[in-house]
């Protein structure tokens, strides 16, 4: 027993601290990688209105306001979200225990009653998380909710979603196992203290944190009958095992998240903060064109030196032509598909899916980022592009710019902006818009109307009205 104690108090601490540091290191590397990829995008300034942005962040990211557009799913998501936030208090205890070699360090501080209620509440949340994850798995794999079953949701997107849910269920199971076995061990520690050595060998100093008042927790106590028959050694192994799997699982999860669509649990906050605050119908102005138009109109002197400047390219062909906010959007996307679900083009069977566009932006940013890391100082761009290799013209041309996707996103992602930027590329760099649009554009330019009517006819309606031709 003495050896086991030394093992627990020294080796475990060392191992735990190492695991913690390695996790922090990996996450920091991932943070740097993702940040660099986001910064592949063009400059975009969000300096104005920090108070409005903060308010949005509190309402929409923290308060989940837009999730409740679908009340039932919103509620289920809230359970997982609240579970995630609050169970972290218990995780904090686990981390402190791990670093200090203590057991349930908050227990003596809070007293057994408060502690029992607190952990009981967390267990209730954990049960909610578990139940919700089961429902979500059923929704994805059995009921097949339409928006989870679109072409872009095959392969990794499908696996990622399921992995996360299974992961969470396993984590919650370990949490309950840990608490149930701990409760039994506490009871045995009390028996030992009272001289009733029914079953031997319990480490009273470790498990007897509640002295003469062992606690059972709200949900995990239902598992006690399952483990009650085990020997104390088996119980300790199970309790420690569950403890380790739970916390290692959480550390592993934290790393996994940075590779997953689940990055939204962190990025939702900055992403909502950096919401585009203009009216959604307003397209971004292209200043380079404004200058060109002013020169054409004769309101601006052409700068002779400007001829030497690099010729600006118009619109977006690759992610590097989008703004960093567009790329942040892409890393924030959790592929819920609410955007695609409300897209008029998508619901009528066209190829366009706003979610796919956003996913493509992330895929492409990852592709460039990985290549940069692989090639280091010898980095040379590949010959792929976002438009062409990921997104097709057919998708882009189907957009009605109705802003339903923008409105639907629970974390204020704007799928419309990259679509319209790529359209600009198609129209201005490739001059490859559909023929009907070519005619429309010619009409606008020549006649001042999208239809082929002479400008002199524009006021004819007034004559018709004056003549009484209702």
């Amino acid at each position, binding site marked *: 027993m003495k050896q086991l104690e030394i093992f627990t108090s020294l080796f475990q601490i060392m191992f735990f601290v190492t695991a913690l540091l390695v996790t922090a290191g990996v996450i920091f590397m991932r943070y740097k990688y993702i940040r660099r990829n986001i910064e592949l995008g063009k400059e975009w300034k969000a300096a104005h209105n920090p108070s409005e942005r903060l308010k949005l962040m509190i309402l929409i990211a923290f308060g989940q306001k837009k999730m409740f*557009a679908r009340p039932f799913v919103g509620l289920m998501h809230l359970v997982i979200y609240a579970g995630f936030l609050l169970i972290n208090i218990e995780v904090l205890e686990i981390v402190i225990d791990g670093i200090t070699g203590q057991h349930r360090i908050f227990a003596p501080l809070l007293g057994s009653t408060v502690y029992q209620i607190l952990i009981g509440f967390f267990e209730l949340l954990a049960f909610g998380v578990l139940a919700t994850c089961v429902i979500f798995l059923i929704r994805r794999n059995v009921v097949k909710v339409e928006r989870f079953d679109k072409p872009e949701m095959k392969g990794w997107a499908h696996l990622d979603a399921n992995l996360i849910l299974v992961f969470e269920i396993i984590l919650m199971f370990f949490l309950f196992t840990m608490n149930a076995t701990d409760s039994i061990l506490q009871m045995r520690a009390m028996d030992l203290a009272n001289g009733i050595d029914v079953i031997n060998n319990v480490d009273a100093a470790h498990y007897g944190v509640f002295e003469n008042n062992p606690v059972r927790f709200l949900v995990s106590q239902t598992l006690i009958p399952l483990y009650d028959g085990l020997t104390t050694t088996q119980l300790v192994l199970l309790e420690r095992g569950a403890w380790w799997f739970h916390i290692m699982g959480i550390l592993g999860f934290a790393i996994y998240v940075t590779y997953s669509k689940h990055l939204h649990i962190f990025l939702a906050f900055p992403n909502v903060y950096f919401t585009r605050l203009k*009216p*959604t*119908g*307003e*397209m971004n*102005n292209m200043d380079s064109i*404004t200058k*060109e*138009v*002013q020169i*054409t*109109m004769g309101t601006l002197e052409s700068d002779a030196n400007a001829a030497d400047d690099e010729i600006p390219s118009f619109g977006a062909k690759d992610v590097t032509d989008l703004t960093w906010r567009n790329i942040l959007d892409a890393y924030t996307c959790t592929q819920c598909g609410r955007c695609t679900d409300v897209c*008029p*083009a998508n619901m*009528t*069977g*066209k*190829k*366009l899916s706003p979610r796919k566009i956003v996913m493509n932006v992330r895929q492409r940013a990852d592709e460039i980022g990985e290549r940069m890391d692989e090639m280091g100082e010898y980095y040379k761009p590949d010959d792929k592009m976002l438009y062409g290799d990921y997104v097709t013209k*057919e998708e882009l*041309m*189907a957009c*009605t*710019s*109705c802003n*339903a996707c*923008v*409105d639907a996103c629970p974390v204020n992602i704007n799928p419309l902006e990259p679509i*319209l930027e790529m*359209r*600009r*590329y*198609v*129209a*201005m760099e490739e001059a490859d*818009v559909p023929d*009907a*649009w070519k*005619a*429309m*554009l010619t009409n*606008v*330019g020549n006649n*001042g*109307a*999208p*239809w082929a009517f002479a*400008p*002199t*006819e*524009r*006021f004819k*309606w*007034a004559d018709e*009205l*004056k*003549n*009484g031709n*209702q």
Partner: protein
Amino acid sequence: MSEETLKIPTMAELSAEGKSPEILFWVGCAGSYDDRYKAVTRAMIRILNKANINFAVLGTEESCTGDPARRAGDEFTFQMQAAMNIEVLNNYNIKNIVTACPHCFNTLKNEYPELGGNYDVIHHSQYLQKLINEGKVKFGGGEFKGKRITYHDSCYLGRANDIYEAPREVLEKLDAELVEMKRCKSKGLCCGAGGAQMFKDAEKGKKEVNIERAEEAVAARPDYVAVGCPFCMTMMGDGIKHFNKEKEIKVLDLSEFIVGAQDL
């Protein structure tokens, strides 16, 4: 009827007399050329006359705002249009603009300021609501009394600019039964014509967007579908026709309801 007394002053005329109007009525391309939609322009003129509004139109000096060009990706054509229109508007020192087209409205209101065109722009739904509230336009239910009306939200008025109530308030004055479609307000479904889709065929799919939307409108069993946008009017009209319901369900613009109720 009072055709003889209808006034349609142009900015050029007023300017020559050294006068300036209270508002400029921006007619738009559809309002000028589209046979069906010209009726909306006429309705607006009748209302403005009846309410004794000091207004003017640009006539032949008006040009496309450039909205479809910009949405199609042709920023150069858009900005050329904007520059020319802004020059005309600023020369006449225009302050207030009313337009029945949400696309013109959005472009003039949100996109012209950055190019030097700063005007107080309102959509005719808001303007009609204002005239009603001020008592300048009065009407009862007329032929619409007790009828079922469903209002189709235009994307460029609703989601793009947060205007959901003004059109409904105008319709409420008709003493009719307002019924909502399954998807309405910020969840409203596009008619399928925005983003310059009006000017080309739809991409391959299993359905046209306006058919999907019209199906929803028909399901609400209205006598009238109310619209506040020329594109929506065309798309909803075609959609209703697709279901052979054009005899039972009429598609009317907000202004046409007022004119109809007032028997102007």
